[in-house]
């Protein structure tokens, strides 16, 4: 499959973005006041998710009536939400509801799960949470058929990969990871989470440099909206746990995946320590390549509690 419309637009948008700084990647904002770059909202999973999206201008800014949306949570492990290895079910179901309220035609919740699909859908609680929302569609895709070979524009080494077909065909991509530590990439947040939309993850470990490959993947799979579940964070022994879970009651949202990830890195005590985002190699590389910004101190941050 060659570049489809959406990927092409995103590629253009990415170029524009790196030129024009933090200009919104979506349609021209109708808001009188420019929305913040980052929203950090304290509160319960549902309320904080709603408020975070609201702070960025509301879901209507990202999802137009009739559009097809893919939400990419982390539901790769068959662990209960308390273990903080997967996205809180209420964060995912709230995002689904928001997309539906914005008039989305289809809302697909997708992940290429690491453990068995059925087990993951059941034990993460995500399928159950989305069940009451008619029209929601929660699935794990682990078979090669579900993926289409795609080139990664602008990448130097990691130039092609097979991406979940439904994602290529979607109009909007929303990243909805959970905040957790990762033994080989420091953290697993929105950028690392995009590995859940490709088929061959193994080669990222042996053929390519994992960190630059994650940054390269972002050229192709750049979320229009990133909402990170920091209601609790797995601060040690990620990504599969069991590890230390810290209750944080926060949701972080941004249109910039790198900024959202950087924000979460800086606010969670990993192994009980403060670690700056530049210590996460894929975040550092993405920033250097102009794919997003890790200098969160220079960004416009909206903080609130609900």
């Amino acid at each position, binding site marked *: 499959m060659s570049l489809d419309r959406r990927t092409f637009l995103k590629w253009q948008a990415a170029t524009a973005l790196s030129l024009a700084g933090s200009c919104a990647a979506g349609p021209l904002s109708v808001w009188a006041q420019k929305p913040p770059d980052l929203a950090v909202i304290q509160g319960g999973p549902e309320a904080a998710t709603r408020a975070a999206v609201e702070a960025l201008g509301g879901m209507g800014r990202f999802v137009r009536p009739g559009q097809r949306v893919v939400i990419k949570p982390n539901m790769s492990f068959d662990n209960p939400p308390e273990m903080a290895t997967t996205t809180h079910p209420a964060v995912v179901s709230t995002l689904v509801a928001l997309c539906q309220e914005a008039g989305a035609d289809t809302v697909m919740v997708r992940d290429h799960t690491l*453990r068995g699909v*059925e087990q993951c859908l059941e034990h993460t609680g995500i399928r159950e949470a989305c069940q009451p929302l008619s029209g929601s569609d929660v699935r794990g895709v682990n078979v090669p058929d579900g993926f289409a070979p795609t080139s990664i524009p602008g990448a130097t080494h990691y130039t092609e990969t097979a991406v979940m077909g439904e994602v290529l065909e979607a109009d909007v991509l929303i990243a909805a990871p959970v905040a957790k530590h990762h033994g080989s990439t420091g953290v697993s947040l929105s950028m690392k989470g995009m590995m859940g939309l490709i088929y061959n993850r193994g080669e990222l470990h*042996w053929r390519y440099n994992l960190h630059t490959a994650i940054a390269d993947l972002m050229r192709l799979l750049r979320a229009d909206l990133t909402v990170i579940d920091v209601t609790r964070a797995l601060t040690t022994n*990620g990504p599969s746990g*069991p590890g230390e879970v810290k209750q944080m009651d926060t949701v972080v949202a941004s249109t910039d995946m790198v900024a959202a990830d950087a924000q979460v890195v800086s606010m969670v005590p990993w192994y009980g320590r403060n670690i700056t985002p530049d210590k996460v190699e894929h975040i550092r590389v993405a920033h250097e390549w102009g794919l997003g910004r890790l200098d969160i101190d220079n960004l416009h941050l909206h903080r609130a509690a609900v």
Partner: protein
Amino acid sequence: MNRIRRWSQAGFLILFLAGVALAFGAFVPWSPLAAFIRLDPLLFLGQAVTRLDWPPGLLQVGVLVGVTLFLGRIFCSHVCPLGTTLALVAWLTRAKRGKRFQPPETWRRGKYVVLIALIVAAFWGVNLTHWGAPLSLATRLYALVVWPFVQFVSDNTVLPGLTPPELVRVAHSGALLVLLGGILGLSVLVPRFWCRYLCPAGALLAFLGRWSLVRRGVGEHCTHCGRCAQQCPVGIGEDGAVAAGECLNCGLCVAQCPEEVIGFQTGGQQRAPFWPRRRQALGAALAGTAAAFFAGTGLWAYRGEREKGQPVAETLVRPPGALPEGAFLDRCVRCGACLRACPTNMLHPQWGEQSGLGAFAPLAVARRGPCEARCTACGEVCPTGAIRSLPLTEKLWAKMGTARLLPSKCLAWEWDRSCLVCDEACPFGAIDLRREPGQKVAVPYVLEDRCTGCGACEHACPVQGQAAIQVTPMGALRLDSGSFRQRGRQLGLDISRTHDKDRALSSDPHSAPDSGQLPPGFSS
């Protein structure tokens, strides 16, 4: 009578196929497959003789013996799924014209010869009855050959939704094909060749059936026209009578008789049975002894530790809850039900990996699929308890082996790559990541006491070819009774999936908060 038989055959075949189909996922508790397999009198006898005890299935086999003493070999003609399959094959390939090859009647002794050989082998402590037990063969046929084949075809054509996410592959399907193809192929040559001349379970039932109360009888007005003999699947003699134990009570002859003098009643006449001659019986006993001996030889097997003199395959990883190897091999009837039930396709029939002893027994191949931490299917479908049916809490402790890391192949140890997929995949926190002097990235270690041998790491390891982390049989817990959890705790194991802060922290002593180094994954 014919109609009843056909309905009965169809009904039991469908029930059996439903059993095979349902032996998967959430349907396992409803699958009648295990109960079906326990019907097989030969499998029962084989286990009983090898282990000198009452194996599971006493009720089923008891009923079958009772029915046979009353109605004769009605099981073969009305129930047996293999018999029905063979009859179907014969019917589908029936010759349009000309006569089929007709072997001499004396070949009927063959099945007794096979029976004697298998029982003698069992007497020497080597249970080989699965080579000839019809229910074992039928399950193997449908679960390991037909089903994966149907799945393969449907997956690529009409019904992609019908099949599980990944195609089921079966190791050594060539061996299965030769064995099962041979049995089916012979049925093309001579209808129910297997049932007439070879089936040892049929021989067992024939032995009982000769005393059956209800037998085929022919009335006085028989004109000896011979029409009944033309249709008879087991061969009616010149005199219109059938040899003792051979009649399947199928009733095909009844409809053929123009005089309507054939009936099934108490005490019908029969000819002498086809007993093997003394020399044949002795030869069979010798063959059984030889089979028992040669089954236990092989270059690829080394001496087992637990059962003295017992050959053990080098990579012998059994399903969780499998009995100690010796007992396991006696009990396992090689039906393949567990292979069918395994949701990750981890279980495969073995072939020569453990001399001939283990042929067709389930081997856990982690590279193909991991043992799902939440699944207990194999133990649930096992008809004999060769794999114990365990509740989840017990199954987790039924350690299948221990993962061993091969640093020279590992991406983290040898290639300085950020990998640690094994850690990500391990559901038990049994992989520890440590910063080591001279290593650029954190490297994996196996915490042996936490490892249950599920093979999630081996399955996920991105190293090409054989993984850099492999499950070995070392430390496997094989208990024939009692609690795995209790025993595991005694042995100092710590197998758990629960989230627990102390456990989590202690799992990474080398990157404790104050060690000065960055936690694994971060880089300066």
